[in-house]
């Protein structure tokens, strides 16, 4: 014989006011103003006193062995801060 049981009392959850959250909202960005004014700071916009500029000297040969690199003329040139070779 099966026992009959009564359904448990339903649990009533009180409805509380939900707070209007950010999900789904259109949130304005903070950086837009200066970007549309052209006042964004991108790397090439940075200027410093006595700034140096790197110039790459590339091989004039498509396929060759580098035996040596002679930087003496470059170092003599006024305004050259220095050179960097693979040595």
């Amino acid at each position, binding site marked *: 014989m099966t026992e009959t049981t009564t359904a448990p009392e339903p649990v009533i959850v009180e409805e509380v006011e939900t707070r209007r959250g950010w999900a789904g909202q259109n949130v304005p*960005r903070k950086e837009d103003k200066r*970007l549309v*004014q*052209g006042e964004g700071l991108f790397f*090439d916009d940075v200027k410093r006193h006595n700034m140096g500029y790197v110039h790459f000297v590339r091989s*004039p040969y498509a396929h060759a062995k580098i035996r040596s690199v002679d930087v003496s003329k470059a170092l003599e040139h006024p305004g050259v801060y220095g050179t960097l070779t693979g040595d």
Partner: protein
Amino acid sequence: MGSSSLHPAVALSRTITVEINGTSYQREVDARRLLIHLIRDDLDLTGSHVGCDTGNCGACSVIFDGTLVKSCMLLAVQADGASIETVEGLADKDELNPLQQAFSDHHALQCGYCTPGMLMSATALLRENSSPSDEEISKAIQGNICRCTGYWNIVKAIKSASGQEVGE
């Protein structure tokens, strides 16, 4: 291939007078100097950007004597006597003009690199066509490449700035 002596740089330069955003500048420039470098490096107007070095991206776009041009495709000496508008001249010091505001409102920019060029193209368009269709706007910004937004918000922003309704 024998060694060749370094040729001394032949410096051909000229003094030019350019008006930019209403201010007149007189500078001595190398004949080979590009206009974009005069604007960015000599005059500190870094709003216009260099994006490609090949005349494709339009990040350097400015309005030159009323015409939209890519300033990387012009020499500074060609601007002698010209009147140029850049992004910095679109609005007064800390304000945004309706077009700039529309870009912000419609999320028409992310990294902001193409934005000055887009704004200048849009400005040139709206002067010529005050109520452009989506197609006309798309055509007007053909010379401007954007890697971030997918263009649609830019088209909506420009359309909205022209006073037209924009859909989704």
